[in-house]
């Protein structure tokens, strides 16, 4: 049994921090200043309601972190306690919704990616008199399960917007990269883009949780097909991987993508990314909480029985400079 060298370790740590100089740019202090500026606002005079938000997100997902930030921001403004929970497995997500019902929350935000599986438990929410709003996915189930409104993006419509943008930019041969094989939403995005695009259009399946592998697959495709002039990715992390693959290919290939991320915005500014189709995740969380508040406060329901769309918003180089600060803040 060797002992962990605790004393030398601590001494080294203290010494490093003490000797380090302060940076006058960036870092945590700058972030805190930005946050203080962002959260200056008033509060409402309604009682402390509790809203549960249950998603199908996996652990540590950047996209869902933005949705959650939006929900937290609206909750802070509306004097609401937000109870966030998430699980990628159907049975666990259903159990979490049940737990929210047990807690007798005042409102429920839920994603319906698992469709039919959530029907019975949402019926229980209705029986308990809890207003439900569905966000992000499952707009075809929303009304059937008794949700007030659905807030999200229609993936087919978003795909069509991307296809139209590709046409306008005069692209000839596009490779659409699907990173979750069998994800219906991703298939809809590619199919929508294909339907509005006049040139040659192919799809490629890669493994989205194994980035080196995904990069190799895109590189191989670019080598095999010299006519390809555009790569269309469906998420920000895969977009960053696609940019690396294009760099290796050493020929002018444009990358276009769905969703935003730090590298995507940097790419928009640098001109390596043509456009990004954003579904504004922050808006999905923010509006979800806010609309529940409006329902409890004033019985207001938005959308007239139709889904409220948060996208597609096609962003180009013109928007990049303004976007950069919000992406850095983690809200876009």
């Amino acid at each position: 049994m060797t002992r962990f060298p605790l004393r030398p370790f601590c001494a080294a740590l203290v010494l490093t921090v003490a000797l380090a100089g302060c940076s006058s740019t960036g870092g945590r202090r700058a972030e805190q200043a930005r946050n203080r500026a962002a959260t200056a606002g008033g509060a409402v005079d309604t009682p402390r309601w509790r809203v549960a938000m249950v998603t199908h997100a996996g652990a540590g997902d950047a996209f869902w972190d933005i949705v959650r930030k939006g929900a937290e921001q609206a909750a802070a403004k509306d004097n609401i306690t937000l109870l966030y929970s998430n699980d990628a497995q159907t049975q666990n997500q259903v159990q979490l919704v049940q737990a929210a019902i047990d807690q007798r929350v005042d409102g429920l935000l839920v994603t319906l990616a698992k469709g039919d599986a959530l029907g019975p438990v949402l019926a229980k929410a209705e029986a308990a008199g809890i207003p439900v709003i569905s966000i992000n996915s499952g707009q075809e189930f929303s009304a059937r399960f008794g949700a007030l409104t659905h807030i999200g993006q229609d993936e087919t419509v978003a795909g069509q917007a991307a296809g139209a943008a590709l046409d306008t930019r005069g692209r000839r041969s596009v490779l659409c990269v699907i990173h979750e094989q069998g994800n219906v939403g991703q298939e809809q995005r590619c199919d929508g883009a294909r339907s509005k695009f006049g040139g040659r259009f192919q799809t490629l399946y890669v493994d989205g949780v194994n980035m080196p592998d995904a990069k190799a697959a895109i590189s191989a495709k670019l080598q095999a097909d010299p006519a390809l002039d555009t790569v269309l990715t469906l998420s920000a992390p895969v977009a960053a991987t696609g940019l690396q693959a294009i760099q290796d290919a050493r020929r002018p290939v444009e990358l276009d993508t769905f969703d935003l991320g730090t590298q995507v915005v940097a790419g928009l500014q640098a001109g390596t990314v043509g456009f990004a189709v954003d579904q504004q995740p922050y808006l999905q969380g923010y509006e979800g909480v806010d609309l529940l508040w409006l329902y409890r406060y004033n019985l207001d329901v938005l959308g007239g029985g139709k889904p409220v769309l948060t996208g597609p918003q096609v962003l180009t180089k013109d928007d990049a400079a303004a976007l950069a600060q919000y992406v850095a803040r983690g809200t876009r």
Partner: protein
Amino acid sequence: MSTSAPPPTDVLATERPPAVRRLLGRPEIGALIAAVAVFLVFSAVADSFLRTSSFGTVLYAASTIGIMAVPVSLLMIGGEFDLSAGVLVTTAALTSSMVSYQLTAVTWVGVLVSLLVVLAVSAFNGWMLSRTRLPSFIVTLGTFLMLTGANLGVTKLVTGTVTTRPISDMEGFASCRWLFASEITVGGLTVKATVWWWLGLLLVGSWVLLRTGFGNWIFAVGGDAAAARAVGVPVARTKTVLYLGVGFCAWVLGQHLLFSFDTVQSGEGVGNELIYIVAAVIGGCLITGGYGSVAGSALGALIFGMTSKGIVYAEWNPDWFKFFLGAMLLLAALLNAWVRRRVERGTSR
């Protein structure tokens, strides 16, 4: 709860009455202490944790782990792992759903075919283990990956998507749902069918382990396979039967998922095999085999259910859930080891 120096007045000293020593020498004791502690913590911090409806939710969460923790703990006492247990549950649900839908058959047909398929996979695990002499960790790692791929590939091939078609409008669905996924509400407490299955499997598993000759074989093959073989215990057959037990329980849980949710996502179940192992280890099973208990695995599953849902009731940030679970595993395992050492004074390794 310190695990450093033993207290001066030793609770397990020999002058204790033998009944108390026997109780403290049980493999479940660490899990029991941990379960009571977890219950008290969440009772103190969360008002909604003590509601009857919440109790039903916690029991349900525990049962979906507990059903699998029973055969997994038996298998671990027999000295082997099954890393394919998590995705096997999904395989069972997918097979049942797709067979019924594609053949337009009564849902019972799918249910029975699914049982045969899952038992065949388990038999393959047992057969590979005995024929190749490869460690079960490797064998079942292989089947785990193969099943994960097959779940996705076959589903996509048959249905064209990654999710099975709804079968709730087919004949036999109602009776299958009654058997696998019904619920009874008594005075606010909703008890799901999985809880009854769990209790039944617990009783059978515990009885087999402690009251039958086969139970002695399980301890023997897990403790020392070579010695067991020398005294005439059929080692390969014993281990294969244990794998079949895992298959049977995976089938039960898979049918529950299908008949309560109507559709099945093909990519699910990955990672759950480790949760089953965690429940068995918290319950007192040794990773090396030859020691453990089935009742303990139930306490392990209960701890999992209370922690996973208790964090929600306590309104804590769920990002930390896995951290708590890991800490719980280490604490329970340390407690188990410490108790065992105190009891087996003189026979320590």
